[in-house]
């Protein structure tokens, strides 16, 4: 069975409310390395990820996966996790059910996923009473159960404290080790360094730089970001 990668973005643009948010981006995402999308707020990271994942349709250009049926073999984790008013276990089960997994194996797979993220003890608790960090771990468990080939993460730890952040990063590493391609946006350089093999730097809807993780940025914009300056003045 062919993998869904590489993913090709061909001259993709996205405009909304008269503004161009993504401006003619062309790139390819290959299997193997974890990709970090860096950029200041408003650069278009969230929109770019949603275009890749298929939640948004481009205004121009094409988003092309390697094979058909790629829809089912990806997952996404958002900055704020959205949980159903059910138990933690039921939330993971819901995702498996949506993916068409047979009833007989669903509970086992759900429990395995919860165990992977360290939430097995909380399986019966209502998902919505869990803490922010626990809910985000639950979101990752939900994604884990699906064994996706690509996992998109949109600033997954932006709302979490350092302790919870560390736990989330460990789980992301586990995904990476299991062979899932990580595509993650963040505005934390430290996190990018810890988790990424390569980086795409986004500035006002353009890709201005892309490289294996850079010690010295080549472009002025990237350099300014690394130095911690505000991107436009």
């Amino acid at each position, binding site marked *: 069975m062919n993998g869904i990668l590489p993913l090709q973005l061909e001259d993709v643009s996205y405009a909304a409310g008269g503004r161009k948010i993504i401006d003619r981006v062309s790139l390819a995402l290959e299997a193997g390395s974890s990709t970090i999308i860096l950029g200041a707020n408003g650069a278009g990271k969230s929109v770019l990820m949603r275009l890749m*994942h298929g939640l948004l349709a481009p205004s121009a250009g094409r988003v092309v996966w390697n094979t058909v049926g790629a829809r089912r073999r990806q997952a*996404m984790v958002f900055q704020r996790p959205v949980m*159903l*008013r059910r138990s933690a276990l039921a939330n993971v089960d819901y*995702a498996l059910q*949506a993916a068409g997994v047979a009833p007989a194996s669903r509970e086992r797979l759900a429990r395995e996923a919860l165990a992977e993220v360290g939430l097995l003890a909380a399986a019966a608790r209502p998902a*919505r*009473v869990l803490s922010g960090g626990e809910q985000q771990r639950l979101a990752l468990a939900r994604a884990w159960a699906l064994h996706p080939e690509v996992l998109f993460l949109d600033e997954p730890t932006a709302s979490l404290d350092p302790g919870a952040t560390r736990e989330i990063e460990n789980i992301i590493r586990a995904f990476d080790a299991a062979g899932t391609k990580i595509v993650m946006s963040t505005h934390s350089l430290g996190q990018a360094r810890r988790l990424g093999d390569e980086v795409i730097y986004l500035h006002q809807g353009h890709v201005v730089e892309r490289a294996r993780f850079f010690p010295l940025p080549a472009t002025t914009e990237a350099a300014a970001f690394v130095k911690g300056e505000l991107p436009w003045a």
Partner: protein
Amino acid sequence: MLEALSTGLRLVATLDLRLWEIVGLSLAVSLSAVALATLVGLPLGAALAVGRFPGRQAVIVVLNALMGLPPVVVGLAIYLLLSRAGPLGELGLLFTPGAMVLAQTVLVLPIIAALARQAVEDAWLEYEEQLRSLGVDGLRGALTVLWDIRFSLLTVVLAGLGRASAEVGAVMIVGGNIDGVTRVMTTAIALETSKGDLPLALGLGMVLIAIVLALNAGAHLIRDAAARRYG
């Protein structure tokens, strides 16, 4: 006013059989109507919330407007339908509780559907991305959201129940206010008012309000308990 209060209390205290017959029928009719309207209206509202089709905005406007259907007009329309001289005369439903349930269902359905549509549409903003990421879309997604906001929907159902138990125009026309058969609280109050027995009418009115209050309090407690349990 005081006489009304004491009349009402006396009716309740003496367990007046006729009163409880009337109360029982009122609850049976209105609760049945609300149950039917909920069964049809909730999925309808959810589907309308997430569906996209030409004329959708017009449908929403009409549905919202139907919330204000005058009960007496609905009663008249159902009467003409169920009359022996009308298309559904064969059913022999006129002047029976069945006709009253039908009329109140028609009255309550737009309320439940319109309010559910709004609730689901608002919630959909929160759930949409995550559900679509999981491959859940369309009606399936709408029903998932519908179930997830079930405790908020309790308020929608209560709005429908309020409308049903308060109206008199529809049940009077299609039920005929027959003593012991189709007499409910509101039609009994109307009758006593027209007979000039105002204290009794007011007393009955207070019993009706007390019952509706009790139902609402009960629903509120359920909602509270659920919020604490499920978050």
